[in-house]
C-alpha cells in the first residue's frame, strides 16, 4: 500500500493466540500493519493418526476418526464407515441410513454454528459467538441422549450404529428445529447484515474459483467461490439422493464472489438446507428395524483398496484404505479438507492487514485436529 518500504517485521501469530482456532503458528512478515508473506506452520497437534490405524482393527479406528475433525465427528465416522462398508459390500438398512443422515446433518449445523461464531469473534463480535454456542449445546444434548457423548461420538459403526435412537428423540429433534429456524434470522440480523461486519468481510480475502480449484479447496469455501460442488449431490452416497435440497453458492452479494462474507453466507444458507434434510429424513424414518442387523462378526475387507470421499462440514473428506485381508488395514490416508483450505491462506491473505488475515483465517474454518491428524 505504501510507497516507502521500511524494514519488515517477522511476527509469530500462535501457536498460543486467541484466533488461531487451535494450535497453528503463522509466521507473518509485516510491513507496518500490512502482511507481505504468510507461512503457516502446522504439526503441533500431530498424533500419528494414519500410522496408528495400521496397528488397529477396523472397528478400533472409528474412535480415532472422531478426533480428527472434532467439530464434525459424526461426519468423520460417516465417511470412514461408508468406505469400509463399500469395501466389504455391506448394505445397511433404510433405518440406519436415515439415522446416519439425521446425525450427520445435525452435526453439520453444529459445526457451522461454531465456525460462524468463531468467525464473528475473530472480527470482534463476541455476543453472536455465545448465542451460537448456546444453540450448538442443544444439538450436543441430542447427541448425548443418543450415544452418551457430546463431542467424540463413536456412533456410526461398520454395518450399523452403536445405539438405536432413544425414546422421544424424533420429537426432541422437531422441537429443536422449530426453535432453531427463527434463531437463524436473529443471527443474520445481528452479525451477517451488520454494516461493520460487511465492511470487514466484503471484498476481503477473495478466493477466485481458479485459485480455489488449484489449491484443492473444497466444501463451503469452494462453494463460496461460485463453484457448485457438493458431494452429497455430485457423488451421492448413503441416501442423500432421495432428499431434495439446494446447494448454495456464493453470489458476491456484498462484494466479490468468494470473499469472506460469501463464505459466511454459504454456511448460513447450508444450515437452512440441513434443517430441511433433517426434516425430510425424520418424516421418512422407519420405526421398526435393528441398527445392529447388518454388522459383520469379523471386519476383514477383501484384499484391495478404496478411496471414498464424503461431504464433511469442511469439504471433501476422503478415506483411502488399503487392505491385505487381515483384521487391520495396511494403510489409511485421510484427505483433510481443512488442510487444503489452510494451504490457500497464503495465496489469498497476503497483501492484507493483520486484522484481515485473522478474519480470512476465521472464514476458512479450519480445524487443526484434522490438519495435523
Amino acid at each position, binding site marked *: 500500500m505504501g510507497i516507502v518500504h521500511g524494514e519488515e517485521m517477522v511476527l509469530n501469530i500462535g501457536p498460543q493466540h486467541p484466533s488461531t482456532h487451535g494450535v497453528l503458528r503463522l509466521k507473518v512478515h509485516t510491513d507496518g500493519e500490512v502482511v507481505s508473506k504468510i507461512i503457516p506452520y502446522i504439526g503441533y497437534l500431530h498424533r500419528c493418526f494414519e500410522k496408528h490405524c495400521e496397528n488397529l482393527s477396523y472397528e478400533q479406528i472409528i474412535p480415532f476418526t472422531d478426533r480428527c475433525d472434532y467439530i464434525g465427528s459424526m461426519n468423520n465416522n460417516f465417511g470412514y464407515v461408508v468406505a469400509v462398508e463399500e469395501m466389504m459390500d455391506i448394505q445397511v438398512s433404510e433405518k440406519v441410513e436415515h439415522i446416519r443422515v439425521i446425525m450427520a446433518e445435525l452435526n453439520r449445523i453444529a459445526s457451522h454454528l461454531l465456525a460462524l461464531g468463531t468467525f464473528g469473534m475473530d472480527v470482534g463480535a463476541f455476543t453472536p459467538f455465545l448465542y451460537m454456542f448456546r444453540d450448538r449445546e442443544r444439538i450436543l444434548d441430542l447427541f448425548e441422549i443418543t450415544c452418551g457423548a457430546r463431542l467424540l461420538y463413536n456412533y456410526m459403526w461398520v454395518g450399523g450404529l452403536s445405539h438405536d435412537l432413544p425414546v422421544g428423540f424424533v420429537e426432541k429433534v422437531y422441537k429443536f428445529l422449530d426453535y432453531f429456524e427463527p434463531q437463524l434470522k436473529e443471527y443474520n440480523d445481528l452479525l451477517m447484515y*451488520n454494516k461493520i461486519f460487511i465492511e470487514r468481510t466484503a471484498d476481503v480475502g477473495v478466493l477466485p474459483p481458479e485459485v480455489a480449484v488449484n489449491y484443492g479447496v473444497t466444501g463451503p469455501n469452494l462453494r463460496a467461490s461460485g463453484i457448485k460442488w457438493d458431494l452429497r449431490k455430485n457423488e451421492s452416497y448413503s441416501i442423500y439422493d432421495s432428499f431434495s435440497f439446494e446447494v448454495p453458492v456464493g453470489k458476491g452479494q456484498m462484494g466479490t464472489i468468494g470473499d469472506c462474507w460469501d463464505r459466511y453466507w454459504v454456511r448460513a444458507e447450508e444450515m437452512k438446507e440441513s434443517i430441511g434434510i433433517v426434516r425430510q429424513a425424520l418424516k421418512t424414518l422407519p420405526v421398526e428395524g435393528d441398527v445392529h442387523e447388518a454388522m459383520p462378526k469379523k471386519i476383514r475387507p477383501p484384499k484391495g483398496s478404496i478411496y471414498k470421499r464424503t461431504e464433511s462440514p469442511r469439504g471433501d473428506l476422503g478415506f483411502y484404505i488399503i487392505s491385505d485381508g487381515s483384521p487391520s488395514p495396511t494403510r489409511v490416508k485421510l484427505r483433510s479438507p481443512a488442510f487444503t483450505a489452510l494451504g490457500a491462506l497464503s495465496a489469498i491473505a497476503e497483501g492484507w492487514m493483520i486484522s484481515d488475515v485473522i478474519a480470512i483465517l476465521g472464514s476458512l474454518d479450519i480445524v487443526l485436529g484434522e490438519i495435523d491428524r
Partner: protein
Amino acid sequence: MVVDQLIEWLGSLLSWGPGSPLIFLTAVLIAGIPIFLLMAINALVSVYAELKISAFMQDRVGPMGQGPGLHAGKWGVLQTLADALKLLSKEDIIPEFADRKLFIIAPFVIFIAPFIALAALPFNQNLLISDLNIGVFYILAVGSIGVIGIILAGWSSNNKWSLFGAMRSAAQIVSYEIPVGLSIVSVIMLTGTLSMQGIISYQEGTILGILPNWIIFNNPFSFIAFFIFFISGVAEVNRTPFDIPEAESELVAGFHTEYSGMRWSFFFLSEYANMLIVSGVAAVGFLGGWHSPISGFLESPGWGLFWFFFKIGALIFVMMWFRWTFPRLRVDQLMNICWKVLIPIALLNIFGVGIWTLLKG
C-alpha cells in the same frame, strides 16, 4: 470551588496565609482523595455493571458467587471487589527484556490523565474540585496525556503485539481528538464560555415550554454535534467498535499484553474513568449537566448529583451496549470514519451553528 474553599479554610487554620504554596499543595492533595475514591468506586460499579449487562445481553447469568446472600452469595455484587483483591495479590511480572523504567511509569501516566481531568467535572451545583474558566479545554487537553502512557507501555513491553497496539492507539486517539474538539466548539459557540458551570447554567429552563433547554435540543446542528462527540468519545476511550488498540482476537491484549496484577488494573481503572469523563463531558456539554430533565423539578443539589450520574450512567450503558453488539472496525476504516466522515461533518456543524446563532440573534 472545593479547592478554593479548602485553601481558605486551611489558610485560616494554619495561619500561613492563603497565598502560601504549602497550603495550596495540601489543599490539592486533600482534593485528590475524593477523586481517587471516585475512580475506584466507578471502576467497581462499572465493571460489575458491565459483567451483568453483558451477561444479560448474551443469555447468561453473569457473576453469581461473591456477595451477601443466603448461601454462596447472590447476584455476585462483590465480584469486582474480589477481582480487585485478586489483582492486588498477584505476582508483579516485568518481562526480562522490557525497559523497566518506562514499563513501571506507563500505567501511572495513563492513570494520571483521567485523574486530573476529573478535577474540572462538576457533579452538582457546588461539588467540583475547581471551576476553571477553561474547564472544557482543560479536560480535553489533559485527557490526551493518556496516549503517551499507552505508547510508553507498548514500547517498553518489548513485545510486538504491544507495539502494534501502541501504534494503532496513537494514530486513533490523536485523530479522534479532532472531531471531539470540533464538536465541543459548537457548544462553546452557543454558550460563549469554556467554564463547565457556565455551560451548564446556559442550559437552564426549557425550549418552547416542553423540552429541557439542553444544548442537544438547541438546534439541529448541536443535535448532530452530540452524536459526533459521543462516537468520537467512544473511540477516544478505546471501546468496541473502536477497540483496535487492544483487539483481543488480533493483538492478544494490545498495549497491555505484558502487564499483570496491579499494574494491569491501573489500565483497567483508567479505561473506566475515561468512560466516566467522556460521558461526563457529554452530559455537561449537551445534556444539561446536573439539571433535571424537567425544568424546576427536583433541582436541589442532592438531586443534581443524582441527575448528573444518571446521565453518565445512561451514556456508559450505551457504550457497553455497543461493545456487546458490534464487531470491530479495521484500523484504516477507523481512520476513514474519522477523517472522511466525522471531521467534515463537524466542520460543517460549526458553520451551521454560527449561522444559526447569527440569524437567531
